[in-house]
């Protein structure tokens, strides 16, 4: 008569262990999913940052600025484009 409760207790413990293991496995999967996403986001973000910090990107900046200025002149005219450029420089310098 006493062996039946013992058996039930043992099966309950086993189920709880199994449940905990599944929870841990699930948590690990969710962590792994988030880690993959973070890695992709971080790497792509760093790739952009690295491009921006390369020598070639920095030395070609005047060319890009000149092109942006040329487009601005086309859009809003020379005087406004100059005014915008001056305002930008001032804002950068505070």
């Amino acid at each position: 008569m006493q062996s039946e409760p013992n058996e039930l207790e043992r099966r309950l413990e086993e189920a709880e262990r199994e449940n905990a293991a599944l929870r841990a496995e699930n948590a690990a999967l969710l962590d792994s999913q988030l880690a993959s996403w973070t890695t992709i986001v971080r790497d792509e973000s760093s790739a952009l940052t690295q491009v921006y910090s390369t020598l070639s990107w920095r030395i070609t900046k005047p060319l890009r600025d000149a092109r942006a200025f040329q487009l601005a002149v086309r859009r809003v005219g020379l005087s406004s484009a100059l005014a915008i450029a001056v305002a930008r420089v001032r804002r950068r310098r505070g």
Partner: protein
Amino acid sequence: MSDVTKADIDSDIDPVSSALAQRLRAAAPHLLPGGADLDTSAGPLLKHLVLAARGSRRDEDLWLLIVAITGRFPEAEHVRGARAALRHSTEADATLLLLSELADLARHSENLRRPMVVIEEATVVDVDFCARHDHNTGIQRVVRQTMSRWADAYAPTFVAWTDFGHAMREIGPYERKRVVDWGTKIEGEPEGKDELAALPIVVPLRSNVLVSEVPRTELCLAQTAISEFSGNTVHLIGYDAIPIVSADTVPHHETERFVRYLNLVKHATRVLAISDAVAEEFSGFAMSVTAQGLSGPKVVSVPLPVDIPDARPASDDVAPAGRLVLCVGSHEPRKNHHAVLFAAELLWNEGLQFSLRFVGGGSIWYTRIFDKQVKRLQKAGRDVQVLRGVSDEEMLALYREATFSVFPSLQEGFGLPVAESLALNTPVITTSYGSTGEIARDGGCLTVDPRDDESIVTAMRELLTNQERVQELQREIAHRPRRSWDAYAHDLASHVVGGRA
């Protein structure tokens, strides 16, 4: 204010992951009010948060979760995109779908390594420009005078934005001094790039957010989304609508920036206009948005004071001897400085003796033309100067020394130079209509039509030749109703602090 501790950050994972985990833990108590297990790792916690936002009817929950995941304040299209992703999801794939939706926003985020603090039921004041820069003309004067008083009385949370405008952040100690201690000599060094990069994102929830300046263009869409989705009550100080209603007097980019700003205005709860004239302009705009099915903001007039700014003691040796005419304001066509110069030249030619001082900077495109005119008159022996980079205390000394000041601006939101001149008992010649007309109604001013040069000449001649008239205007000033910066700061607070709509 920051509740970010080192315990929030696991040292054995990279800074991006640890910052993400910290932000999720900071959001958890607000998204899982029933209790969040903060000991769990980031993956399962994110799943709980996503399911909570998915099941929630409140946009603010999703808005907060987006900030936590990406380190960015989203724009409206990001919130709608995320909402759509969750609507099409099942419990099983909701997290993946949301992460996928937000990947692009996150990969362009400048804040992946930045922690976050959430503040609830607080008063948050956006002082981005004043905190980051030393410039101090119209809007900055209002913000600094007001916030130096609020700092002690209401202890608001001051915030700036990260460099690219991706999120609100705490301000550093030096930045705070720039906002609240402007009238005193600021000690110490401004924060360096690394120090600023370490300041946490500030996320207001169920709070009063006051946008105290006209924001940078790149902030407008994120600020609009705060108004639309975050559950915060957003108040704006309405300075003027000049870039729209007088677009011919400002550079194109100012108009473009203002158009973006109007998007924020239409979703804001309240606009606190600095004069009745400005209140009318914003009310007109608020009415126009009903055609879009929006109620528009409530517009209230909270007029600026006629008072002097807090400043260090004035020096006495900045003014010339004899009669001094003062003209304060940045050099731009709207301020009508050429008309003042024209009037002065006529009066000098008539044989009147007086000194003329212009105080204020401006874009080189306007100043170079103006400076040429001034140089021509100087060569002719006229006592005229343009003073740039003048400190507040020097300017106050000039007001005190002046016989009268001239401010015939074509349009103003308020006209601080008129108010400051009157506060120092110096009569003013100013525009008869709009906000300066409002100020003039209480006495101490001669009003003119700024578009009529002869009207300005006549007024200046009168005050240069009739000392009794000057004294009469001074007596009128003495009887003007007094309104101080203390009163303005208090009135503004009565609409914002603890006053959620």
